[in-house]
């Protein structure tokens, strides 16, 4: 039987696939049939494809879905404004003046939670204490973050890191789980560098390769 998270993942996958097909169709049709509007298709297509691709990995419990859609829409809209401004030399400053701050706001708003500003008040993301009160959706969100980070590591190293984190988090007391996850996420950048440095040394070594 499928769990709620699996169903959610599947819906997301279908949405991503649908978005990709729709955007590809828009781009292809405009490029082929309306040569004068190639820049529109190019802009919408590129921004849309990036947004769709990126949104696939965005952490997303149910209540975050609307926010995520708004972000994707905002990204496409602002990207279109900015790039289209490049084609109107007299008005280039407008899209830059408006678009860049809006894009920055839209991108950073992805990390806002519970109405607090990042790093202030209740805190957010890694700065917030605990976060064990947000139920299964929160747990899924945290798990996705760890999974996302593990993908930045070389394959076997990332899988081992994630498996070990999963093992440990399943046994740790709920009160300490938030802090443990934060410690995993905070130490991850150093670990990514360390693992890739080791991987590079391993690959540079002459002779038969051994699995990492």
């Amino acid at each position, binding site marked *: 039987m499928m769990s709620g998270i699996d169903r959610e993942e599947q819906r997301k996958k279908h949405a991503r696939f649908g978005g990709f097909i729709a955007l590809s169709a828009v781009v292809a049709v405009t490029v082929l049939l309306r040569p004068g509007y190639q820049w529109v298709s190019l802009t919408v297509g590129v921004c849309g494809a990036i947004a769709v691709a990126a949104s696939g990995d965005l952490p997303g419990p149910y209540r975050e879905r609307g926010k995520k859609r708004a972000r994707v829409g905002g990204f496409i809209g602002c990207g279109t404004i900015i790039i289209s401004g490049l084609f109107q030399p007299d008005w280039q400053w407008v899209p830059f003046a408006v678009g860049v701050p809006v894009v920055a706001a839209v991108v950073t708003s992805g990390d806002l939670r519970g109405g607090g500003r990042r790093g202030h008040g209740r805190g957010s993301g890694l700065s917030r204490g605990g976060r064990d009160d947000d139920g299964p959706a929160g747990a899924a969100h945290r798990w996705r973050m760890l999974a996302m980070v593990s993908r930045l590591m070389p394959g076997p190293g990332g899988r081992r890191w994630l498996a070990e984190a999963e093992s440990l988090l399943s046994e740790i007391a709920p009160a300490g789980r938030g802090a443990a996850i934060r410690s995993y996420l905070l130490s991850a950048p150093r670990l990514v560098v*360390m693992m890739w440095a080791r991987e590079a040394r391993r690959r540079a070594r002459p002779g038969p390769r051994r699995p990492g």
Partner: protein
Amino acid sequence: MALRLTVQVQLVVQALLRDPAREIYGLELSEETGLQPGTAYPILLRLEHEGWVASRWEDIDPRAEKRPARRYYRLTAGGAVQAGAALAAARRPNGMALRRLAGESCTA
């Protein structure tokens, strides 16, 4: 690259040296050392790369046990000797510190 014996590394090595033959897993280690699991993991990985520590996955059926397998760590024979020596060296005051102390006592 030589292993830098920071305070955290020393804590992990001390915990492993308490009983070198004992296998220890991440949560146990973080409880003994007071380090967060995310802090202890890179240290264990570095110790493993240096050959001081060996690790293995626990051989269990996760469904039967209703928990994922643990990763167990233990000191290797060579690692125990090296770790003991490194820890002793880290505790010994270095030459520069002794000279500074000597200088301070002369001026006083």
